[in-house]
């Protein structure tokens, strides 16, 4: 049952990810990306991490993608507006992507043994109660650092978007 769901979700994830890249219309791309995010949240739910699944939907599908769609819709981009990029840029982009892909695959291959130990112990490690305790005890410094970083980004965004007062 779970295996069938996994294959369906994976097919949706990969299909929508490819369509995100292949769509000519930027808004269609964005909508495919939203579907892709949803199926990734489904993968999290299959791994029994409900918190991560919900937060993923709230942050990515709910906030980031809506703002992105918002911008694209208001800009009203057309295919004719697109700037043709030189071939060197395309090659560099492909190489960079392959490097990142290689890095991700190799780092995920490293984590496989660690995952095995988790499934064997059967300890509850992903409900919000446990996550909260871990975040505010063991990892309180990185957690607060991330909070300060986000706050700084927010203040910066407000500062940039604020209109400058005219000096009379």
């Amino acid at each position, binding site marked *: 049952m779970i295996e069938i769901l996994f294959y369906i979700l994976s097919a949706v994830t990969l299909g929508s990810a490819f369509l995100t890249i292949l769509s000519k219309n930027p*808004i269609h791309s964005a*909508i495919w990306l*939203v579907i892709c995010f949803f199926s990734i949240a489904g993968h999290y739910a299959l791994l029994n991490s*409900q*918190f991560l699944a*919900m*937060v993923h*939907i*709230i942050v990515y*599908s*709910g*906030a980031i993608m*809506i*703002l992105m*769609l*918002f911008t694209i*819709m*208001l800009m009203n981009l057309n295919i004719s507006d697109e700037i043709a990029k030189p071939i060197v840029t395309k090659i560099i982009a492909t190489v960079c992507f392959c490097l990142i892909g290689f890095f991700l695959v190799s780092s995920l291959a490293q984590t496989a043994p660690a995952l095995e130990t988790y499934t064997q112990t059967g300890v509850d490690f992903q*409900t*919000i109660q446990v996550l909260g305790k871990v975040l505010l005890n063991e990892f309180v410094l990185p957690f607060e650092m991330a909070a300060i970083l986000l706050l700084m980004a927010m203040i910066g965004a407000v500062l940039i978007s604020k209109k400058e007062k005219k000096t009379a």
Partner: protein
Amino acid sequence: MEEAIIIEKSVIIVAVFAITMLFAMYCTLAERKIAAWIQDRRGPNRAGPGGMLQPLADGLKLFAKEEFMPNTPNTFLFVFGPFISMTMALMTSAVIPWGDTLEIGGRKVILQAADINVAMLYVFAVLSVSVYGIMIGGWASNNKYSLISAMRVASQMISYEIAMGLSIVAILMMHSSMSLREIAAGQHEMHWNIFYQPLGFFIFLICSFAETNRTPFDLAECEQELIGGYHTEYSSMRMGFFLFAEYAAMFISSTLLAVLYLGAYNYPGMTWAAENWGENTANIIGIAVLFGKICFFIFLYMWVRWTIPRFRYDQLMNLGWKTLIPLAILNIVVTAVVLLLNR
């Protein structure tokens, strides 16, 4: 055992779906009747006794009307918009506890489709995604007024979601749980959250109005400025779906208000009723009480609609960002201090 759970949950899901639809249907009638009552008119009274069959007549009319298709290259998205709106409006009902347990044939039946421990986050996830229907529909209409309306809805909903989430945090701190079932159970007898969180209740109430696009926050539907709004190009049952989704969302948000702040299915004297009349009777009264509270909030929605005029857009943004969010943060701080002192 396994089959029993599947049957039980299917019955609950179908019942909740049917009740939501019925409420949304009769909300359209109630809205017109209440408007008529406030403006000293009679309201619809031709179809059936007292106009009781009016929603059916409206539905029939919507189905029978011509489906007009605007000149748009995005036919699929245009058709898909209303359906996203409708689905998202109905999805929240999955985690709402409609009552305490009922004992049927020696089995304890929990009156809730899914009791997940991140129910509150689920509600927010659905809320934040529900704007897609209007956004996609408004954009695919290929009409600049529809697009402006869709943009208004999106920015309004994003702004008010923040204050809404912050007002909920205080409740999560009080109950130390995200499960709606535990939040409901924690408000037994008269320990309703509204008495402990009056400020949070008001913030949540205002944000609920904004999230459902009801007056005074219905800037998405300005006849004077935008001809109609995001549904200008829609006709027939697709238009009906958008309107229906609005009423379904109103029902669900009334339910959330009742569950989070007005004690869900709890009522004073519930333990007494359980001791004297049996658990089942007490819990059935509880379901009736919950629906009574929901009806009260639906009435409040309509009452406000015919009382308060629309905001201007900058006033709406100022209220959301400069008043409600600071107040919600203040509410969290005060709650935290009180909880710490009472420990």
